[in-house]
């Protein structure tokens, strides 16, 4: 037996040789080959091992539905598993290997699984390892989790590279009047017709070239017609995108396209992306996605050497490979006769089995004198041979069902079980296909959202009919967009569905009662006919459940091979018809999309936007080590020579409390709240009174959500009667702005208030510590404005720094020290920092970063985003006194609900280690000492070493607050890091609780 390259013919360039590696062996092929056709030409039979049973697998198709030749392509960082050899174009130097087998696909230890296959039936894993419901934590599920890694290893598909992806990927957008998906006879005709009406048309084709089924047909007239169409498309200005798959259709005429740019190139230009991910928006869409030939379930129907009939024909006509010498073509419809004829003309000995009793006279005539032996009423029953087919046991139709009628030798079995129109993309739009009994297939020929089907995708079989169907669809799309019939062409009507001379004989499974068989329905996941029947016996009646239980249709081909057979078997078991069983919904993607294409350029530093403050460069120049805070880059600490991060932030904290520290606080959200009703507006959104805030004063405020939980906090400065400057936390700046806009536009449109984000306009620095006033006095133009009387705690001044730099200063404190926040227009940021830094240095002050900022605020028990996580009430945060009893505000109604005012809610506390030399981590769970389990009694949100107290401290929440824990022993449990520390629960105001330093 052998497959071989024939002497001439095909769309390959025989003048040129390509060398490639298959499983470490050197082989060759030609430009125009796929990996599959080149391997077939080299007579490689076993290319893979199946998922569960490690059955030998060869090439089963020539397209995207391939379920046999699933291989690994590439090496090192570019190793790509689960590639369909039928879709991989050959290039010089390609390296491919078999997968899911050891030591290789030809001799595979794992194939012993097939001996115990009866233990690996549908739902086996669930039944055995997952325990019975209810899944008790740590019992059934735990056992499953323990076994899972071994099962995955034994079953597994290929393994991806563990190295970072070295390739680049791009995202792009496209717009057009008409998108045509599929470049076969129907798609080309549709695109041409529409373009002739003046439409802007994009035609996408997953293959390397246009032609579709024409590429697999024989005869010079076929190529003449194909080139005519391609030429006409180019002349008509149609944008043709080959190697591009429309993997999904979405709302409003949006299609997702994956363009393969370099996977077929030996040495791609390094500036080219590997894939492009296109978002295309089309006013109209035509799906000319063709059809896929169906398999038939019979014993060993997955043996290497069994493939679909159209693939056998395509390998011959397109790739010049005769896949066998002694060929049996088994069919239940007209379409395989042309295949039998082509292979016979190429020198193969061909036997045709037709499951039907009668054969159309024209087909009989066509194969008449070619020496093809025809057996009617016949079908494949059992394939013999292990690593490749050696003979076929043939079934003949009996009074009821089938009987064996002997064996026929063969080295290739080509099967046609009918055709399934590719309705996947229409299914993405929620359209359920309907069963067409006459042609034994699901079709969707309705027009939906400007999407039309044409050609084989709607069940039209003949090439010439497909062209007419495409033309009709193209014209209809043009007219739907209002194009006139100016092309002089009379508007075409699509030929009806079908076109075979004699009807198909529905045939999904061939078996003999009480004879055991291994007939694959979904070869990629090793789902057998028996698995389907077992699922039915166990009570699965819904197709969606059947699918999940047996994993039918859940492999990388997405059910292209097995779905219809599975439905048919289910219908038989249930005693009903296929449409009564239903159909599964196809979901995107039609074929796999690389993760790289999904992420595009959003990787590494481009993974998310980066925000820098106007003093970013200044911070770096002054020794900052930066860290991420949300999208912001902020100074983390300013290490001096030889200092660790801990040493640095402790020094910064100490210095700030002793003299003065400067910190970039630009990332705080800043909102200008302006207008005659601004005061009323603020009074409604903050829990505390704002109605009487004097001009020139700031107030700390808390805002709640409608449901009464804390949304954000910050200070708001009154600059004039109608002008406020609001600051928010860094984390919630965007959310607060959108919330204010929502309130003003949707609820309180009577309020005359305008809100503007000015976060980018003002650069800010905290000036904190006992020497802060001295530093500012030295920096402002008029030092007298800084005096304690002129500028009391919570005061606000608009003044100038030296050199006439306009500034806003508020005397507010996050650190607990006497402190100010100074803002200047962003362009002045470096100038301000130079000035402040010079004066701070003069009094032995320093710069501090986020780490010291955290230490200072934790010592004081001030909350940030880590505490205000959306689950916290104002009382939980220890700020209940901020909630006014004399006014109504957002959240005031719902914050008093019984659950929200319970005494035992987790409340803000400070945490000390009992043994002061110990430390704990943020994220630690607080538990009763004698009860370290489950969710505990509380949690730690922030931890720092406190230079003021001389030991590690934390801030967090615990049920009932610190007073409830005065006589209780608590531990901080950190099971992940295996740490357990006895702790003391204290007031969150751990340092200077009366605030003397701040007012001083």
């Amino acid at each position, binding site marked *: 037996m052998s497959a071989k390259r024939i002497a001439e013919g095909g769309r390959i360039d025989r003048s040129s040789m390509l060398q490639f590696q298959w499983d470490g062996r050197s082989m060759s092929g030609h430009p125009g080959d796929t990996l599959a056709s080149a391997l077939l030409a080299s007579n490689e039979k076993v290319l893979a091992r199946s998922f569960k049973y490690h059955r030998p697998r060869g090439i089963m198709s020539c397209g995207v539905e391939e379920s046999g030749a699933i291989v690994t392509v590439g090496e090192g960082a570019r190793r790509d598993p689960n590639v369909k050899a039928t879709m991989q174009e050959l290039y010089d130097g390609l390296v491919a290997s078999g997968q899911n087998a050891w030591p290789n696909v030809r001799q595979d230890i794992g194939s012993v699984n097939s001996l115990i296959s009866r233990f690996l039936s549908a739902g086996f894993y669930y039944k055995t390892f997952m325990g019975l419901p209810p899944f008790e934590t740590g019992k059934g599920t735990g056992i499953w989790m323990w076994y899972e890694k071994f099962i995955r290893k034994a079953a597994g598909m290929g393994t991806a590279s563990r190295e970072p992806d070295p390739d680049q990927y791009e995202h792009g957008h496209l717009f057009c009047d008409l998108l045509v998906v599929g470049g076969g006879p129907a798609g080309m005709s549709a695109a041409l017709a529409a373009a002739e009406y003046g439409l802007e048309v994009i035609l996408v084709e997953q293959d390397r070239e246009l032609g579709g089924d024409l590429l697999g047909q024989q005869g010079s007239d076929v190529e003449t017609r194909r080139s005519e169409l391609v030429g006409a498309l180019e002349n008509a200005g149609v944008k043709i995108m080959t190697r591009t798959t429309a993997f999904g259709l979405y709302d409003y005429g*949006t299609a997702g396209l994956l363009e393969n740019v370099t996977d077929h190139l030996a040495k791609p230009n390094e500036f080219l992306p590997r894939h492009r991910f296109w978002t295309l*928006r089309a006013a109209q869409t035509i799906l000319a996605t063709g059809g896929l030939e169906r398999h038939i379930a019979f014993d060993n129907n997955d043996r290497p050497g069994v493939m679909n009939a159209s693939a056998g024909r395509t390998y011959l006509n397109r790739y010049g490979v005769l896949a066998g010498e002694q060929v049996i073509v088994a069919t239940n419809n007209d379409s395989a006769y042309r295949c039998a004829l082509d292979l016979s003309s190429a020198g193969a000995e061909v036997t045709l089995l037709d499951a039907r009793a009668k054969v159309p006279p024209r087909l009989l005539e066509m194969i008449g004198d070619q020496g093809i032996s025809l057996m009617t009423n016949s079908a494949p029953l059992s394939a013999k041979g292990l690593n490749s087919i050696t003979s076929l046991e043939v079934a003949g139709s009996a009074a009821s069902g089938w009987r064996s009628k002997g064996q026929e030798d063969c080295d290739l079995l080509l099967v046609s079980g009918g055709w399934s129109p590719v309705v996947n993309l229409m299914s993405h739009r929620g359209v359920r296909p309907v069963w067409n009994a006459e042609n034994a297939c699901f079709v969707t020929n309705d027009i939906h959202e400007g999407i039309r089907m044409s050609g084989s995708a709607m069940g039209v079989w003949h090439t010439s009919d497909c062209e007419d169907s495409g033309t009709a669809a193209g014209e209809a799309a043009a007219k739907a967009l209002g194009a006139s019939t100016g092309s002089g062409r009379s508007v075409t009507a699509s030929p009806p569905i079908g076109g075979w001379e004699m009807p198909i004989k529905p045939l999904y499974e061939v078996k003999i009662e009480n004879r055991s068989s291994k007939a694959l329905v979904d070869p990629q996941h090793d789902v057998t006919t028996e698995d389907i029947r077992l699922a039915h016996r166990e009570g699965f009646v819904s197709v969606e459940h059947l699918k999940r239980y047996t994993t039918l249709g859940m492999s990388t081909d997405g059910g292209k091979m097995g779905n219809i057979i599975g439905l048919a078997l289910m219908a038989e078991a249930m005693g009903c018809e296929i449409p009564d069983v239903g159909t599964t919904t196809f979901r995107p993607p039609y074929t796999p999309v690389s993760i790289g294409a999904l992420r595009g350029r959003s990787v590494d530093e481009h993974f998310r936007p980066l925000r820098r403050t106007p003093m970013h460069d200044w911070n770096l120049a002054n020794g900052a080590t930066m860290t991420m805070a949300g999208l912001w880059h902020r100074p983390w600490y300013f290490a001096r020579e030889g200092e660790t991060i801990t040493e640095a932030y402790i020094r910064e904290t100490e210095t700030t409390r002793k003299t003065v520290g400067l910190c970039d606080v630009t990332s705080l959200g800043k909102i200008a709240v302006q207008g005659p009703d601004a005061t009323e507006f603020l009074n409604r959104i903050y829990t505390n009174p704002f109605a009487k805030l004097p001009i020139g004063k700031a107030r700390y405020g808390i805002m709640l959500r409608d449901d009464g939980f804390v949304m954000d906090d910050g200070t708001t400065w009154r600059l004039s009667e109608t002008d406020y400057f609001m600051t928010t936390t860094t984390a919630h700046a965007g959310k607060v702005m959108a919330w204010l806009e929502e309130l003003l536009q*949707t609820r309180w449109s009577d309020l005359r208030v305008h809100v503007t984000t000015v976060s980018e306009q003002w650069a800010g620095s905290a000036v904190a510590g006992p020497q802060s006033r001295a530093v500012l006095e030295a920096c402002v133009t008029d030092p007298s404005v800084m005096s304690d009387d002129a500028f009391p705690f919570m005061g606000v001044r608009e003044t100038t720094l030296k050199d006439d730099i306009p500034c806003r200063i508020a005397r507010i404190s996050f650190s607990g020290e006497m402190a100010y926040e100074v803002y200047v227009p962003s362009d002045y940021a470096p100038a301000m920092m130079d000035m402040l830094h010079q004066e701070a240095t003069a009094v032995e002050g320093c710069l501090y970063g986020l780490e010291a900022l955290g230490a200072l605020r934790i010592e004081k028990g001030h909350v940030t985003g880590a505490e205000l996580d959306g689950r916290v009430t104002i009382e939980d945060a220890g700020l209940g006194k901020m909630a006014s009893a004399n006014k109504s505000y957002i959240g005031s*109604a719902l914050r008093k609900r019984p659950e929200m005012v319970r005494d035992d809610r987790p409340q803000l506390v400070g945490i000390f280690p009992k043994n002061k030399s110990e430390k704990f981590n943020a994220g630690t769970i607080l538990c009763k000492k004698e009860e370290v389990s489950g969710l505990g009694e509380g949690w730690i949100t922030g931890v720092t070493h406190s230079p003021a107290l001389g030991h590690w401290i934390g801030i967090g929440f615990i049920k009932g607050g610190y007073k409830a824990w005065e006589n209780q022993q608590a531990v901080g449990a950190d099971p992940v890091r295996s740490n357990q520390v006895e702790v003391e629960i204290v007031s969150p105001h751990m340092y200077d609780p009366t605030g003397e330093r701040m007012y001083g």
Partner: protein
Amino acid sequence: MIRINCPFCGERDHSEFTYGGDASIVYPALDASEEEWHDAVYLRENIRGMQSETWHHVSGCRMWLVVQRDTVTHEIRSVRAAHEDYAKLFSDPAEEQS
């Protein structure tokens, strides 16, 4: 991949917007009862069909919009500014999305 015809900016991809919520809710006065607030905050119809909802053109003009959208098909029947005064600036035909 919904597209929303913002009255201020024109037709834009939904990725420029954020979804707000049910636009039919009339929020009670701030001093209304806990029950009234509870109903306004928590009780929602689960509409199959045309629904009135708010969207924020957050990466555009920052305006809040009221959108009539079919929850089954995503068809958008109309878009208008949520703020009454702005809505009045636009004549009726502009409110309808073709």
